[in-house]
């Protein structure tokens, strides 16, 4: 709104105080409004105090902005203890004159009201605290306690109005927390006074899984994310997960990463997967999805690519042991630091928490490959829509970071081989989809693998049988019988048949050869006989000829004698 009017030469940037809370700065596009009060409201136990405390501490540690924490609820040492587990040392900050924690105790039983008063005492205390360390950030947690302690609401409301005005004049960035009311954002209607920025925290439990959410109700003078964003409280404090900050403009790579499974690479024209693409390996139970995933992990680790393996079914130890049985040594990669295996039950957290954990790990460890095994297990903790949105976010997350991701998905044993929920959710999102399936027949079960799709890469259309032995996976050559491809025993008997036929053929050929030799021999014998015959005839004829010549000679001689 305000931004648009300043788009001439220099772009106006609304002054903001960065919160230092992971993800929140993205949603608020820079932080809370600088020099103005921000209201954080929500029900009990949804993280109001923590968020405000984190705002203050991050302000000190990251942006060098000293802060005052005025607590109306918890005593100073309780606060110190509470946030210590999150790695914040309040005592140290206090000693460094960066932080003042003032506990304002309002005890109704101790206070009697007799006549007119104002809250100058509070102002003076706050002012004194601010001035003593030149604070620029102030947290008032929870102002509403005043309403419980003081009777005269008229004075209180007037004084609160004055307080916020005074805070603005002081130029401090203030955070005020408020308990959520039944029909209003806060029980005492604090949003009336603080109108610059209001953030609503919410803690919901759906089907026994709790999710914390955050929403910016309003933010004057600035654009902001308007959705509900899930957030997580863990050992590092609060982190918020922006949903819609994801755009489809990630960089793409034409690098090929090897599949790790011998023979599978040849099914792709490129010889493997594109780097940064995501691959879905789906199949029914026991079709070696995990094995394929581990092969992929192993291959990546061998190439010194950092890999994270999320196992939702097996513990790291179990996975390592199981893979050892087929000749994969994952422990070696773990020791070398190229592989991390994270195991947890999907129901441990809500979907968003899983995603946040993932996000954190990606940020910290910077892997180039992640494997989620299996993605379908996550469905047990959310509705279809939630799962879909979570998967979209997950896939976008890895794409933005140019991480090659391989998901496995367990589908139900159906005759139709129709994709089920998990597949449906991700099938349009993944770049490569490989299916492993059981091929039953002749009293046995065999495994087949085929590629359903592979974006931007030609691929084989064959169903290849593969076997898993002590040496690992092996893709077998295609074997086609009269009724389609052959697997297992059928392949075996077909091979025997083929060999028999071959032997038969060879025998036949040999026999033919021998026949020819025999024929030749006979022929040659005949030729010899004819030649002999010819020779004898020739001899006879020449004898006859000689006799005739002799007779003629004799006749001539006789005639000569007669003439004489």
């Amino acid at each position: 709104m305000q931004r648009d009017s300043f788009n001439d030469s220099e772009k106006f940037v609304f002054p903001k105080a960065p919160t230092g809370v992971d993800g929140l700065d993205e949603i608020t596009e820079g932080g809370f409004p600088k020099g103005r009060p921000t209201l954080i409201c929500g029900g009990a136990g949804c993280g109001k105090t923590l968020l405000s405390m984190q705002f203050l501490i991050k302000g000190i540690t990251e942006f060098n902005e000293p802060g005052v924490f005025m607590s109306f609820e918890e005593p100073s040492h309780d606060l110190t203890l509470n946030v210590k587990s999150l790695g914040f040392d309040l005592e140290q900050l206090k000693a460094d004159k960066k932080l003042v924690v003032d506990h304002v105790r309002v005890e109704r039983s101790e206070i009697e009201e007799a006549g007119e008063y104002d809250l100058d005492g509070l102002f003076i205390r706050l002012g004194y605290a601010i001035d003593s360390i030149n604070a620029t950030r102030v947290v008032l947690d929870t102002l509403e306690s005043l309403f419980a302690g003081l009777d005269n609401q008229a004075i209180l409301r007037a004084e609160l109005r004055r307080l916020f005005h005074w805070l603005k004049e002081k130029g401090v960035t203030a955070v005020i927390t408020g308990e959520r009311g039944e029909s209003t954002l806060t029980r005492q209607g604090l949003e009336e006074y603080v109108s610059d920025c209001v953030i609503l925290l919410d803690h919901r439990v759906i089907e026994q899984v709790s999710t914390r959410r955050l929403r910016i109700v309003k933010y004057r003078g600035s654009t902001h994310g308007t959705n509900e964003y899930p957030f997580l409280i863990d050992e590092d404090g609060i982190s918020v997960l922006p949903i819609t900050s994801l755009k489809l403009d990630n960089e793409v790579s034409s690098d090929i990463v090897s599949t790790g499974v011998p023979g599978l690479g040849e099914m792709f024209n490129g010889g493997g997967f594109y780097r940064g693409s995501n691959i879905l390996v789906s199949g029914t139970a026991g079709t070696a999805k995990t094995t394929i995933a581990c092969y992929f992990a192993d291959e990546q680790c061998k190439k010194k690519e950092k890999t994270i393996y999320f196992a939702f079914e097996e513990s790291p130890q179990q996975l390592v042991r199981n893979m050892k049985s087929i000749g994969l040594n994952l422990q070696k990669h773990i020791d070398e630091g190229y592989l991390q295996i994270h195991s947890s039950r999907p129901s441990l957290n809500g979907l968003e928490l899983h995603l946040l954990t993932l996000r954190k790990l990606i940020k910290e460890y910077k892997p180039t490959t992640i494997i989620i095994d299996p993605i379908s297990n996550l469905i047990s903790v959310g509705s279809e829509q939630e799962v879909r949105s979570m998967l979209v976010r997950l896939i976008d997350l890895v794409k933005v970071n140019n991480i090659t991701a391989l998901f496995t998905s367990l589908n139900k044993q159906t005759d139709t081989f129709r994709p089920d929920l998990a597949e449906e959710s991700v099938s349009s999102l993944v770049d490569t989809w490989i299916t492993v399936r059981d091929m039953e027949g002749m009293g046995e079960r065999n495994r087949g693998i085929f590629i359903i799709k592979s974006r931007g890469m030609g691929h084989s259309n064959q169903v290849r049988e593969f076997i898993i032995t002590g040496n690992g996976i092996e893709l077998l050559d295609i074997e086609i019988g009269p009724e389609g491809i052959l697997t297992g025993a059928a392949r075996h008997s077909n091979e025997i048949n083929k060999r028999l036929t071959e032997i038969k053929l060879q025998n036949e050929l040999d026999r033919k050869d021998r026949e020819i030799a025999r024929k030749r021999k006979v022929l040659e014998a005949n030729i010899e006989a004819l030649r002999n015959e010819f020779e004898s005839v020739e001899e006879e004829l020449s004898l006859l000829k000689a006799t005739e010549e002799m007779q003629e000679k004799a006749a001539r001689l006789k005639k000569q004698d007669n003439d004489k």
Partner: protein
Amino acid sequence: MTNNNEPATINENGVAEWQLLLYIAGQTPKSIKALSNIKKYAEEHLKGKYSIEIIDLLKSPQLAEGDQILAVPTLVRKFPEPIRKIIGDLSNEERVLVGLNIKPLNK
């Protein structure tokens, strides 16, 4: 800024003297009124066994935290214990006397 009417003593019954603190923020009409009010009540009910100390928070703001001062003017009964606080200009005599436990409620 002390206004001791009597030296600090404990009378023969063993009852401690009344120590009162009045927190104000500058010489505002409310604080002047509060001071004159408490002086009047004290003279009337606690003659000879009380002391009133006036603390101006504008001059010594660091003192506000110790007694958990929120509103001004605030009258604090330091002694006898337990500590009692009365906020306001003390114009409601009934409430002040009840608050200070000088007079039981609804007498």
